[in-house]
């Protein structure tokens, strides 16, 4: 996928300006034509749906930025529904008959944490999330077979808030492994530090990363005082399987075991479903949401706040990437000219000198 870097001091503003170019009819018609989409007689109606959905989405997103946690999840969820509807219509050139959210929330009243709330996927054909999944994921995608996910599981699966989620919920169920990437003279290695020396448990965790053994050579383990250092190397010519966060740190995503299946959902599904769970709590269960915001003693509120900020930044970026079929990166840094001069490392210079000496010796 083509990568486009946009240097800006206001990434969210710039991102929405890119999306809102599709709030003009001419741009939509051009997009349809360029992508071979034939909307037929409904063209005008579809254009209005797209324009209205995207403008409303932007409005909800802007409002959520200034809102408190009493309404922010709800505003952001409504904004995301509109954003997804606009994008799905643009991508397909069709209108959709959507019946409900495609998810149900089960409230766990006895548990003192928001993360215990569970979300169940329903209405595989016309539920909102299922319809959007069919358009946003390029291959056929179905959430219908999935069982119940807890909000806690979802939040632990989002790399950008993983540290806060682990601090809040403990490390027993982690679904993201941050990778330390190191360039060595023998190529790039990735390193993970685990607490303790239980190599079997670490190997079992790594085996829950889909395609791990296809992409990586056998990991090597080195024990340090209280930790185990695991070094990973990619197999030759194998594509990386890691997820790159907004700050471009790499993470390995661990699958959820549901029944006999190992599942890693797209990042937008974790965020969309979590927003739905939180929006439902604040809209329909204020007796739980209000005390959580005012009296939270666990620090879960900090996690929810961070999640809201990350969802607001990431979800429109994912949608823009899908619409334009490229990877947009909005970075707050100064422009640096491209350097095409190859700078040799110390080991490369040594190799060259050694080769030259041998060659001269041979021809003496």
């Amino acid at each position: 996928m083509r990568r486009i870097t946009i240097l800006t001091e206001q990434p969210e503003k710039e991102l929405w300006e890119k999306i809102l170019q599709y709030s003009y009819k001419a741009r939509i018609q051009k997009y349809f034509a360029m992508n071979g989409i034939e909307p037929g007689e409904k063209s005008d109606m579809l254009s209005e749906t797209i324009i209205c959905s995207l403008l409303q989405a932007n409005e909800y997103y802007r409002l959520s930025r200034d809102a408190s946690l009493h309404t922010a999840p709800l505003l952001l969820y409504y904004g995301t529904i509109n954003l997804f509807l606009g994008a799905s219509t643009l991508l397909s050139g069709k209108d959709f008959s959507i019946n409900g959210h495609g998810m149900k929330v089960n409230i766990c009243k006895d548990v003192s944490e928001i993360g215990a709330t569970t979300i169940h996927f329903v209405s595989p054909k016309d539920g909102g999330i299922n319809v959007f999944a069919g358009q946003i994921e390029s291959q056929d995608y179905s959430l219908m077979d999935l069982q119940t996910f807890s909000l806690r599981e979802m939040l632990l699966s989002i790399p950008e808030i993983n540290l806060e989620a682990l601090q809040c919920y403990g490390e027993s169920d982690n679904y993201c492994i941050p990778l330390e990437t190191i360039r060595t003279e023998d190529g790039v290695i990735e390193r993970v530090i685990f607490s303790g020396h239980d190599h079997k448990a670490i190997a079992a965790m790594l085996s829950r990363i889909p395609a791990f053994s296809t992409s990586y050579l056998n990991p090597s383990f080195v024990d340090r005082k209280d930790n185990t250092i695991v070094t990973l190397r990619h197999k030759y010519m194998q594509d990386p399987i890691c997820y790159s966060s907004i700050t471009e740190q790499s993470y390995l995503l661990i699958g959820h075991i549901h029944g006999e299946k190992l599942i890693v959902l797209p990042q937008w599904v974790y965020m969309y479903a979590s927003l739905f769970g939180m929006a439902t709590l604040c809209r329909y269960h204020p007796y739980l949401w209000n005390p959580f915001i005012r009296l939270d003693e666990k620090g879960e509120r900090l996690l929810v706040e961070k999640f809201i900020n990350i969802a607001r930044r990431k979800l429109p970026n994912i949608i823009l990437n899908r619409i334009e079929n490229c990877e947009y990166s909005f970075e707050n840094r100064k422009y640096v000219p491209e350097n095409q001069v190859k700078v040799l490392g110390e080991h490369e210079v040594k190799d060259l000198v050694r080769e030259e000496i041998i060659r001269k010796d041979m021809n003496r």
Partner: protein
Amino acid sequence: MSSFRDEIFQLCKKLNSMEQFSSLRQTMHELRFLSSENELYDPKRDICFNGILLRAEFYGILLAYEKKLISIPSTSLKNTDLSEKEKKDLVLGHSYISKFISLCLEEIKEKNCFLGNILSPYSFLFPIENVSETEIDVSLFHDAVDSFKSTSVYRSIIETNALQAFTLASEEMIRNLFGSLYKEIIQAPTDCVPKDIILLKDREKSWRPNQQVNAIDALQLISFKLLALREMLSHAASLLYDSILGSKLLVIDENKLINIEKNSDNTIYSYRTILLQGSVLSPYNDMLNRVFLFHFEKGPFRMHEFGRASSMTTKFANENGDTTKLTYCTLDEELNPISNLTKR
């Protein structure tokens, strides 16, 4: 007829399944890994290891024991002799390889005895004394020997008057010639080709059929072919040795491969430098003497070739993981590593 390489693998399969070598395998395991109780340094085990480093199969191990080849000269040489049983086992293994080599070279030996002797892969080592080879059934080698004699390199020597050039040469002259060729071509780094060889191959390209060529050039080109024969036998001997000891063919594949750093050809070799994860262990054979299969496949990119390591460096990098950089030359269907040099 199958290629020499295929016939050698067929022979290896037979040797690998022969019960006759079970005692030899046990002996090698003991010599290599079992040390005397409460001894930090076991000279008997050390001699075996040094014998393996001679890269001459059972011959090297027998020679090491005969010459008491230990790493620490002041060490006591007590209990370093092979027992009767151990010696008998090693001689049995050596007899198979030695018989095979002499069958392959018998015709050349008939025409030029000195040359036949020098083409044995063990000809640069001291002779071993007090070893009388075991009688073995040679019918086992029939197909492999035939395929050796059908190789293009062998036929180009035996079916022409190439050997006549060596008729007047003394044994010492032949030994010196092959000694210097071995050093210049086989022992030199794979990416270094002497200038005179490059110039000779350039001249060869311009030769027309029936053209009178320079006698020294012709002699050199024949010498390259004879050197190739020696290397082919050396690789066959290494493969037979591994199969007699029950080892399987070493395969280097995607599960160890980090990178292919160099993929190159020159006037002598086709060679690659690959970076592997961890170390490549070969308990009974020196890695630089071992023939292995390199296999890598991803989409349309496929490499499936046999090779012999010419250099290997293992880096124990601890937290960064151990790596091995291995440079190998590829072997063709005749197990010839210098086919770029021997083909016109």
